[in-house]
């Protein structure tokens, strides 16, 4: 394959040995070297270090010398009465997030794409993208203030409009956690998520729309029959990517919104890994829990890819 390409690009040059090829390209390897070194040290050595999940890590003996304990840490995790709850929380938070945050940017992009007043279109895009640039820290700070029972915006508004009689402590409420998490994600990233769809829509042939107009198709019909089919390949790819990351639900926001009172829904595997590993220094145990999470995620990723490659034979390409 590679040799075939080689022959195509400079057909006149006789085939050289692999070694000569490598030497000829030495400068590229010099450019590649720093990245490869960093990746080996900070990506691959930690992967090798995952074996501490099966050992009783101590600093003196290190990654490879600590005593082998087999599945002890996994047994401890599954023996914990909270483990099922954590797995459930992780999957539910992720699933609900995808369910809500996935379709909204698509609808939004279709609508924005229909706007004729270009100035209004630009300005609304600029404003809708803006929250994406706010850090998770600031977002969670804002949420904590807005949801506070002491003069928080949501409570003041709720009382002013007569929805609630007395202030509700939303930030500590386990039943409100997922709603808060997802609603704030929509606020922050729905606009940003439209970019990829809008740029796909902008490549749609304008004459298609003109022809449809002449045939008497109204705006909604044109969206249904021209725009949406154009978006389907992108939608499928985006969907694969979100399901492929199902178990990697955003740790940062869950952690920053977590209080001792809402743990019933806010404690996910990632926050537990951090708590056990960094705060309690249970290195081996934390690594085992994290490894479990990664393995589940990889199984999901492979499964979703399989399903989609089957589907895609039918629906696109």
């Amino acid at each position, binding site marked *: 394959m590679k040799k075939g*390409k080689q022959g195509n690009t400079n057909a006149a040059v006789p085939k050289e040995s692999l070694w000569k090829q490598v030497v000829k390209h030495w400068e590229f390897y010099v450019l590649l070297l720093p990245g490869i070194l960093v990746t080996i040290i900070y990506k691959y050595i930690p992967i090798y270090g995952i074996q501490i999940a099966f050992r009783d890590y101590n600093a003196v003996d290190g990654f490879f010398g600590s005593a082998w304990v087999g599945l002890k840490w996994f047994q401890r995790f599954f023996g914990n009465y909270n483990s099922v709850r954590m797995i459930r929380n992780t999957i539910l938070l992720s699933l609900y997030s995808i369910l809500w945050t996935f379709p909204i940017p698509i609808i939004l992009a279709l609508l924005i794409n229909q706007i004729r007043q270009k100035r209004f279109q630009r300005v609304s895009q600029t404003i809708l993208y803006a929250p994406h640039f706010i850090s998770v820290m600031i977002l969670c700070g804002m949420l*904590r203030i807005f949801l506070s029972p002491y003069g928080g915006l949501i409570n003041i508004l709720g009382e002013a409009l007569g929805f609630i009689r007395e202030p509700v402590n939303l930030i500590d409420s386990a039943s409100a956690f997922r709603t808060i998490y997802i609603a704030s994600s929509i606020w922050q990233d729905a606009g940003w998520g439209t970019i990829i769809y809008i740029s796909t829509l902008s490549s749609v042939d304008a004459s298609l729309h003109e022809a449809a107009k002449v045939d008497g198709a*109204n705006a909604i019909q044109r969206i249904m029959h021209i725009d949406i089919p154009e978006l389907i390949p992108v939608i499928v790819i985006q969907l694969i990517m979100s399901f492929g990351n199902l178990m990697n639900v955003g740790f940062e926001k869950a952690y920053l919104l977590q209080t001792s009172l809402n743990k019933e829904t806010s404690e996910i595997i990632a926050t537990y890994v951090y708590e056990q590993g960094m705060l309690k220094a249970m290195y081996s145990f934390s690594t085992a829990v994290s490894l479990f999470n990664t393995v589940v995620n990889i199984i999901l990723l492979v499964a979703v890819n399989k399903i989609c490659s089957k589907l895609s034979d039918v629906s696109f390409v």
Partner: protein
Amino acid sequence: MNRKKENGLSSEKVFNFCNCAFLLVLVVIVAYPLYYVLIASISDPYEVYAGKTFILPSKVTFEGYARVFREESIARGYLNSIYYTVLGTLVSVALIITTAYSVSKKTLPFKKTIMVFYVITMYFGGGLIPTYLVVSRTGLLNSVWSLILPGGVAVYNVIVARTYFENSIPEELYEAAAIDGSSNLGTFFKIALPLAKPILAVMVIFTMVAYWNDWFTALIYMGEKSKYPLQLALRQILIQSQATATMMGNMDGGYAEANKITELIKFASIVVGAVPMLIAYPFVQRYFEKGFMAGAVKG
């Protein structure tokens, strides 16, 4: 026929009107929380509490800002964040571009192997603790490099940049340069880099935002408070509600008063923290929209 056409046009107009109205409402909903924070940050906290600051500030005061600017941790956090962001962006973008350029070379032996080597790290990693232990063993704790190196090479960006190099820079240019006797490195600096400016801009912007907003890496690796970036300084105020003594300062009045001042400080520090990105972003908007197009992975 004529009537039908008129009907069609007017239904089109109705749709357009509804569409614009709907989006206008959305824009207001998205912008309002930010606007509310802005007014609340310059209003008397009692007025905010009483719900009198929905549209306009009430009993304007700059007390919150005065206290935030007096706070050492915020100022230091700002300086630290600027330093980390500038250095981190330089290193990360250099890693992305050199890698992307090299793997875009069609004749490079082991090109595929190198890409597989990188793509694996997108889906599989050592996780929190093994990475922490390696960072700690390599002596990076409390150093700016602990924020930069463990992130490695941003593989997704490498793929985007590689696509750009492959599709937007014609092979003939490289060949011409080779005939003129330019070395491969010379070609990289004199031809590839200048032509890659648009994608370079996109990479710089995305990387900068990521470094500026990052707090978790610093939380793990930066034990010393004097090295906290802005986001961690904000964490103390916003999440942990630790207004420091310098901020509370000369305060008369009791616990309730203190509580109100804390709220005011929170609003002010949100504005102070969010403003740099929100002001900078509209100016670079056209770059990242272009970047999405340029990097769109071809089927």
